[in-house]
Structure formats: structure tokens, C-alpha cells
């Protein structure tokens, strides 16, 4: 093991704001967001690339931030759950999850909403299978997924005109 490891400068745009920091290479993106930027809405669930609680958008694509190093996000744009609302208004996806009771304990919800965001950015009229496939990498142990799917349908409807 190396005795001293050089920190690496990274410039990452998170929720529209540019951050320049020096990070240890082994720092995971999720820890970078939570510990360095205090954005604790991105959760650590399984920490083994399974549950998707740590899902964020990397240049618009959903990724598990526990399975990426912060140095790899250099130059990238990251969206976390904190970046979904605009001017104090909830994002239509956030509103839909509330309206459809698409959450109970809420631990998995940020990840589910960001997976929904990737889906709806590319597919404005997803069918049931598209929706199930889009959240197959997000584990929820409360809802049984029925109301999550309902929330996704609500969100797709309300975003169609947008």
C-alpha cells in the first residue's frame, strides 16, 4: 500500500454549482457528495452496488455513486436529489412521489426519483415495462413498488406538457 498518496484536484459541477476540491483518489463519489459537500440526500444503502439508494445523475445518466471514485467525476455535471427542485418549487417527479404515496420510510426515494428522471428525460411516454426496467436497480423495502410505479405514471403525465 502506498504510504502517502497525492490528492487529486477535481472540478465537479453539482446541481449547477462548480466545486473545486482536492480529493484522495479512493474517495467514493457518494462520500464526496455527503462528507465534502454536505449533500446528504444521496444515501448509502448497501454500499455494494446493489440497492441504488446512492443513485445520482452523471451528465444525465443514472449511476451508483458508491461505485465510482470522486476523481472520475472531474469535469462532469452531477445532479443529486437536492438539485431537483427549482426556485423553491418541487420537481414534478418529487410532487408525483408525494401525491401517489410513492414512499414510506423514504430512504430509497432520492435514488428512485433520479432513476425516474433519467427515464423521463429520454422517454416521455414510458409503458409499464419501461418503468419497471428503469427502477430495477433501485431497491425499496416498504412500498412493494406499486405506488412508486403510480408516482412514475403521475410524473410522466405532468411532465408531458412541459
Amino acid at each position: 500500500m502506498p504510504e502517502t498518496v497525492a490528492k487529486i484536484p477535481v472540478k465537479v459541477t453539482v446541481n449547477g454549482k462548480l466545486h473545486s476540491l482536492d480529493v484522495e483518489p479512493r474517495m467514493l463519489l457518494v462520500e464526496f457528495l455527503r462528507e465534502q459537500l454536505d449533500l446528504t440526500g444521496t444515501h448509502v444503502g448497501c454500499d455494494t452496488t446493489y440497492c441504488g439508494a446512492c443513485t445520482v445523475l452523471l451528465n444525465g445518466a443514472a449511476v451508483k455513486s458508491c461505485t465510482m471514485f470522486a476523481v472520475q467525476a472531474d469535469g462532469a455535471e452531477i445532479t443529486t436529489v437536492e438539485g431537483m427542485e427549482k426556485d423553491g418549487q418541487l420537481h414534478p417527479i418529487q410532487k408525483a412521489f408525494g401525491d401517489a404515496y410513492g414512499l414510506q420510510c423514504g430512504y430509497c426515494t432520492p435514488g428512485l426519483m433520479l432513476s425516474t428522471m433519467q427515464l423521463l428525460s429520454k422517454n416521455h411516454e414510458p409503458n409499464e415495462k419501461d418503468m419497471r426496467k428503469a427502477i430495477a436497480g433501485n431497491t425499496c423495502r416498504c412500498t412493494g413498488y406499486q405506488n412508486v410505479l403510480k408516482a412514475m405514471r403521475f410524473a410522466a403525465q405532468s411532465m408531458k406538457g412541459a
Partner: protein
Amino acid sequence: MYPRAFHYHRAGSLKDAAATLSQLGDDAKLLAGGQSLIPLMKLRFANPAHLIDLNFISGTSYIKDDNGVLRFGPLTRHAELENSAIVSKVPILHDCAAGIADVQVRNRGTIGGSLAEADPSGDWAVVLSTLATQVRCLGKNGERTVDLKDFIHDAYTTALAHDELVSEVAVKIPAKGSGGAYLAFKRAAPVYPTASAAVQLTMDGSVCKEAAIALGCVGLVAIKGNDAEAALRGQAISEKTLSAAAEAASAAADPQDDMRGSADYKRRLVGALVRRAIDIAVRRARGEQVEVSHIYA
């Protein structure tokens, strides 16, 4: 969970990465999609002192149809393959790309990384071994081409020398009249399959002219179903030939008991998957559109 500390190197080109590998020796590893390597590092099963990041090299992600040969850049992500119209011309490739893990993993994981990692439960090696596939390997002394059948030697062991890397994956598009399917049985999307089967058939009417069958997750490498292929070759596809192929596939499997199931269960499962995959391959060879995605428990 944190991996052990490591030095980070950002490669400017594939050549640069090979040279850095050669210079740093055995303690260095390449970082492609990282969807296998980073979990292994977090669990400290892998503890490289140096990581060479390939993700900032431009021009390493591409999908080309080069006169009947599909060429994939080493860092082409599974999601890019899943959404490619060119890849969809070979349905078995689409089956594979669209069924690996989940959206998030497919957005990061790469075809070159999957082959170079040679995980016994990986999907690409199984599927590509039923097609004419070549792997380009780049080292400090130049490039060479290795047939996929000679590329994977054992679990996590490939023909790559320490200072070589995968620079391209080339797959010949099967001729008209050929059809294939890949089916993996998984307990949930993010997990590795319990067992999987890839079948590519060349049909002449109802008679099978050529067959390639490979089984995944039931051995240390993808297992070639030689006897299952022989059961189909030159035969009309019927209940009898289907059963013979499925039984031969079950017999060829060499699974282990683990949390995904007993060896006996996996042997039966892989036979059933082969049977279903043959049925879909035959229909696709006839030109039918058959949508397939992995089967969840």
C-alpha cells in the same frame, strides 16, 4: 467502505495506459467501468497500489459496422450497446446488453472491461463465444488479435499479458438465416445470473445447419455445449432434438452449490434455458421479432 489507498493515474491514450502498466508492474490495474473492480476493491479482494483510469481517453467508445464486422471500442458502455440500432441487427447482442444488471450499472460498465475481467458470472463472454469474436490486445510492442476462444483461460484469467489491454472487440455479423438468443435467470436485476444460456443457430428451413451453444455461471468460464450443438446439427428441430440438446447442456454444466442454488438445481435450470433459447433462436432465424429480457425469479 473504503478501498486501500492507491495512486491514481489518468491515461491520455490506450498506448499511454499500456506503457504506464508496463512501467508500474504487477501492482497496477486498469479502471474501465469499475462496476466489478470497485466493489472488489471496497471489499479488499483487490488491492492495487496504482489505478490507471481509462475513462478520460477520447475515441474509446464506438460501435461500427465495418463490412459485416461489428467493431466495439473497449470502453463502449453496456447502455450504448443496448440502445444501438446497429447492435440490434444481432438480437443476441441486444439481449445481452439490455439484460446486464440494471440501468445504473449498464451506464458505466464496458464490454472491454467485462471480457478483460473474465468473471465466471459475466455475461459478454458467454454470448460472444457463440459468435465469431476477436479481441484486439494492445501492448507496448504493438497490437495483436486473439480469438475469443483463446482469450479467456480461466476464472479472472485471460491471454492479456500484464502490460496489455483490450483495444477493440470485433464480432462478425451472422449470415442471413441465422438467429440467436441469450437468456439469463436472475433473482433480481442487480445480481449476477444463477445460470445463463446463449444459442446461435443457422437454419435451413426447419433443419439446423449450424449451432453454437454456451452456458454461463455454471463453471469457471463459459462452457461450450459441444454435445448440445451436436444434438441439433443436421436435425429438424423437434421435441426430441430439443430434449436431447437440453439434456446434453445439463450434463455439460459444471456448477457449484452456492447461495444462488444447488448444483443440481442449476444443472436443470441451464437445460431449461437452453431449450427456451433454442425456441427463440429458431423463430428469430425465420425473421420473427421476439423480444427477450432476462428472467427474474
